[in-house]
C-alpha cells in the first residue's frame, strides 16, 4: 500500500444539531421571513443542508427597527465594561462550541476542516476577545477624549470566511457601542445562524445583533435603509462601488473591503523552502477564495525556474477532496457560479498564451471542484494577471530588479495586500515602503491578527478593520480629536498600514 494515500479521517458531523429550517434572527428571536425560503447546500456534495429564510424589505425594516430600539434603550446606555462582559462571554462560547462551528463552516462553505478548525474559528474567538478588551477603553482608541458610537450598523459579508467576517464586523461594532443588522452571504448563512444561537446563550440583549439572511436584494434593502448610520461591506469591487454610490450624501459612514490582486514578491535571497510554503499558503489557502490572496507571484528571474520546479513538486503533495477529511488541504469551490468564473478566466489565460499546469489529482464527481493551477509565462497585460480570479489559480511573473518588482506589484487597480520574501531586512523595509497595499507580509503570507489593521488602497476599498483602526470605523470623534485633515496629513506621513513580520506576529501566538 501507499502510505501517502492516507486512510480517510473524516471529522464527524454528529456534533451538529441543525434545524431543517432557519428563520431570521430579529430582536433576539428566530422569526419567519416574508419572502420565499431557499436551500443552502454543501458545495462538496451539492446536498442540501437546511432551508434558509429570504429577508424582504419589510423584514429588513423590522430588523433595523429592533436594532434602533436596542441602541436607544439598552446598548448605547450600557457601560463599556458591561458591553465588554458580553463580548467576553461570546468569545468563550465560540471556543466552547469551536468544533461544532468548524464542522458547520466546512460543510456549508467547502473549506477544509483543518482550516476552519485551526484558522477561522480560533480567529473568531480571538477577535471577540480582542475587542472585548477595548469596550471600556474607547477614549484611548485615538479618536478623541470622548468617542461616541454611531448607532445602527448595516453589515454585509461575503462567503469566503463566513464566520470570521462576521466576527470582524460584529466585534468592533458592539465594542464601540453600536447595534447591528448583519446579512451573511446567500451561499453560507449557516454559521451566522449558529452564532445567533450563541448570542441567545450569552443572553445578549434582544435586538443588539440581528441577522437577516437572503441574497443581493436583501443586502441592498439593508444598506439603503434610511435608519442605518453605518455601512460596512466586504465583497466584490462592483458591489462596493454600487454601495458607495447609493450611500453618498446620506451621511452614513462607510467602510469597504473589496477585491485584490496581491503580488507575492520572491527575491533571490529568499529563504527558499519557506517561500514555497508561503506561495502555496498565499494562493491555495481557502481554495484561493481570499481577497488578499497572493495571486500574482513575482519571482526574481535568476531563481524563476527553480522556484517553479519546487512549487510544482510541492503542489503534487496537496490533497484535494472532502472538506471534512482532516487531511484535506484544498476543499471545494463555494458555488457553481464561482466555479464557472474560475474556469472562464483560466481558459482565457490559456487562450492568451500563458502555460497552464495542475498536479495530477482526482476530483470528486459531485460538487464544485477546481484543481490547484499555476500559470507560467504570464505577461502583465494578461487578464489572469489583472483580474481577481478568487480561486486556486496562481499567475507567475518574473522581474529583474527591485524597482521592476515594485512597479509590477503596484501596477494594478487593487491595493489590498502584498508579500515580500527576502532574508535581507533592509530590502524588505525599502520595498514595503514603496508598495501601495494595505497589508504587507514579510516572509509570511495570509497571517491575521485582531490587533493588526487590515484594509485596502485604491479599488480594494477604504477604512480599516482590526486593531485600534478598526474601532475608529464605528466611532464618532469626541472632543479633542484631531481634525480630519490633520489626521490625513499624519497618515500620509506614515502610511496607515501594517507591515507584519513574523517576528512580531510570533509573540502573539
Amino acid at each position: 500500500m501507499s502510505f501517502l494515500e492516507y486512510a480517510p479521517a473524516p471529522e464527524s458531523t454528529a456534533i451538529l444539531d441543525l434545524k431543517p429550517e432557519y428563520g431570521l434572527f430579529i430582536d433576539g428571536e428566530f422569526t419567519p421571513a416574508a419572502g420565499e425560503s431557499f436551500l443552502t447546500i454543501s458545495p462538496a456534495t451539492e446536498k442540501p443542508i437546511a432551508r434558509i429564510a429570504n429577508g424582504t424589505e419589510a423584514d429588513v425594516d423590522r430588523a433595523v427597527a429592533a436594532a434602533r430600539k436596542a441602541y436607544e434603550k439598552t446598548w448605547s446606555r450600557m457601560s463599556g465594561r458591561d458591553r465588554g462582559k458580553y463580548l467576553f462571554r461570546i468569545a468563550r462560547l465560540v471556543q466552547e462550541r469551536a468544533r461544532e462551528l468548524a464542522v458547520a463552516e466546512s460543510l456549508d462553505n467547502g473549506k477544509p476542516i483543518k482550516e476552519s478548525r485551526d484558522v477561522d474559528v480560533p480567529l473568531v474567538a480571538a477577535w471577540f476577545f480582542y475587542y472585548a478588551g477595548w469596550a471600556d477603553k474607547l477614549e484611548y482608541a485615538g479618536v478623541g477624549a470622548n468617542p461616541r458610537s454611531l448607532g445602527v450598523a448595516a453589515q454585509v459579508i461575503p462567503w469566503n470566511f463566513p464566520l470570521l467576517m462576521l466576527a470582524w464586523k460584529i466585534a468592533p461594532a458592539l465594542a464601540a457601542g453600536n447595534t447591528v443588522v448583519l446579512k451573511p452571504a446567500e451561499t453560507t448563512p449557516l454559521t451566522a445562524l449558529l452564532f445567533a444561537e450563541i448570542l441567545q446563550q450569552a443572553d445578549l440583549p434582544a435586538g443588539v445583533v440581528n441577522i437577516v439572511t437572503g441574497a443581493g436584494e436583501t443586502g441592498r434593502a439593508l444598506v439603503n435603509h434610511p435608519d442605518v448610520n453605518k455601512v460596512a461591506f466586504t465583497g466584490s469591487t462592483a458591489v462596493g462601488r454600487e454601495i458607495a454610490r447609493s450611500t453618498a450624501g446620506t451621511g452614513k459612514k462607510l467602510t469597504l473591503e473589496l477585491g485584490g490582486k496581491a503580488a507575492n514578491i520572491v527575491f533571490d535571497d529568499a529563504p527558499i523552502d519557506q517561500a514555497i510554503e508561503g506561495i502555496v499558503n498565499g494562493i491555495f489557502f481557502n481554495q484561493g477564495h481570499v481577497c488578499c490572496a497572493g495571486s500574482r507571484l513575482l519571482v526574481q528571474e535568476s531563481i524563476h525556474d527553480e522556484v517553479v520546479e519546487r512549487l510544482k513538486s510541492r503542489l503534487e503533495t496537496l490533497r484535494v477532496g472532502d472538506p471534512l477529511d482532516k487531511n484535506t488541504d484544498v476543499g471545494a469551490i463555494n458555488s457553481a457560479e464561482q466555479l464557472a468564473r474560475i474556469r472562464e478566466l483560466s481558459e482565457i489565460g490559456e487562450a492568451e498564451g500563458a502555460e497552464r499546469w495542475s498536479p495530477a489529482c482526482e476530483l470528486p464527481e459531485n460538487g464544485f471542484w477546481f484543481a490547484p493551477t499555476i500559470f507560467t509565462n504570464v505577461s502583465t497585460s494578461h487578464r489572469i494577471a489583472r483580474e481577481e480570479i478568487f480561486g486556486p489559480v496562481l499567475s507567475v511573473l518574473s522581474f529583474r530588479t527591485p524597482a521592476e518588482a515594485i512597479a509590477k506589484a503596484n501596477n494594478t487597480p487593487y491595493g489590498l495586500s502584498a508579500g515580500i520574501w527576502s532574508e535581507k531586512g533592509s530590502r524588505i523595509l525599502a520595498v514595503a515602503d514603496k508598495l501601495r497595499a494595505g497589508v504587507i507580509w514579510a516572509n509570511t503570507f495570509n497571517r491575521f491578527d485582531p490587533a493588526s489593521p487590515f484594509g485596502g488602497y485604491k479599488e480594494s476599498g477604504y477604512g480599516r478593520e482590526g486593531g485600534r483602526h478598526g474601532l475608529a470605523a464605528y466611532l464618532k470623534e469626541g472632543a479633542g480629536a484631531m481634525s480630519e485633515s490633520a489626521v490625513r496629513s499624519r497618515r500620509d506621513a506614515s502610511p496607515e498600514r501594517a507591515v507584519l513580520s513574523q517576528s512580531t506576529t510570533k509573540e502573539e501566538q
Partner: protein
Amino acid sequence: MTIERAVSPAQRAVEVLGGDLTEATLKRYLDGLPGVDTVGLEQRAASLGTRSIKTTSKAWALDRIIELIDLTTLEGADTPGKVRSLVAKALVPDAGDPSTPRVAAVCVYGDMVPYAVEALGDAHAAGRVTEPGDGLINVAAVATAFPSGRASLPVKLADTADAVAAGADEIDMVIDRGAFLSGRYGLVFDEIVAVKEACRRADGSFAHLKVILETGELNTYDNVRRASWLAILAGGDFIKTSTGKVAPAATLPVTLLMLEAVRDWHRLTGEKIGVKPAGGIRSSKDAIKYLVTVAETVGEEWLQPHLFRFGASSLLNDVLLQRQKLSSGHYSGADYVTID
C-alpha cells in the same frame, strides 16, 4: 592563511564544488546556501504534525516505525548482559505477538559490538543490505569519542576502526561542534572524510557512516542546514540529529530541515542520503509525525531502513502498546510489554 588550506578531496565535494577544494571554497558554498526562516520552518513542521493517520494507515505506520528503529542503549553502566537483553528485545519485540516485525538495528558503544554480534547470530545483517521484513538486524556503534567528540583525530579513527573490526555494520560519528561553530568547516570536513575511510573493512566495503550533527548545540537552523550539507559533501551516508545526550535532541522542524537538505542533494545528484532523528521521540504519535514529514518532503521511498531511522529506546514499547490496541481494541498497560 588557514582558510586557503586544501581540504580532503572527497568525491562528492569535488563533483559539486570542483577540483580545487579549499577551506575557502567550502565555506563560500556553505555560506551561500539559502537561509532558513525560523517561523516558517516551524509552521510547516507543525502543519505536517496535524495529519490524521487512522485505521489501515496507522497499522502500516506502526509496523514500519518498528522496522526503522535503531534500538539503543548508550549508558556508562551498559554490560554485555544488558546488550544481550537489548538484542533479545530487537529480535522479538513483542513476546505475545510473533507477527511483530524486527527493528532495523541495535545501537551500542564500540566495546559492546562483539556481544551484540554474538547475540544476534544468524540474524546479524553483517554488511548485507537489509529490507523490511527480512528479519536481519544491523549493529550500529557510536564512535569518535561519542558523545562530546573531544579527542584527537587518531583516537577517533582508532575508535571507529575498532568497532568496524568487531563487526559493526554502521558507525554513528559525532562532528566537532566546537570547530563548526568557530567557522572551521574544513576541519570538520576532513574529520568526516577520515572517519569514512576508517569505516573501510578488510574486504574493501564500508560500514555505513551516520554523521551526528548534534543540532541542539548548533543552535540555529542556518547552522543545521550548513552542517547537513557539509556532512553529505564529506561522504556521510546518513545525517543524524543528535547524540541523545544534549537537549534539545531531535525535533520535527530540525528533522524537516535535514530532510530538505537530503531532498535537494537528491535533486542535484540523484544520490539518496539517509536521515536519523535521535533522542526525544518517545510516543507513536510523535513517530507518525516523522513518517508523514519524510513521506511529504522526500517521498515515500525514504521510509526504508537504509534511508530513515529512529534513534530511540522507549519508543518501541509505546508502538507495541499501540499495536496491541489496534488488534485487540483496548489499551493494555506497561506490564504487557517487556522492559529490556
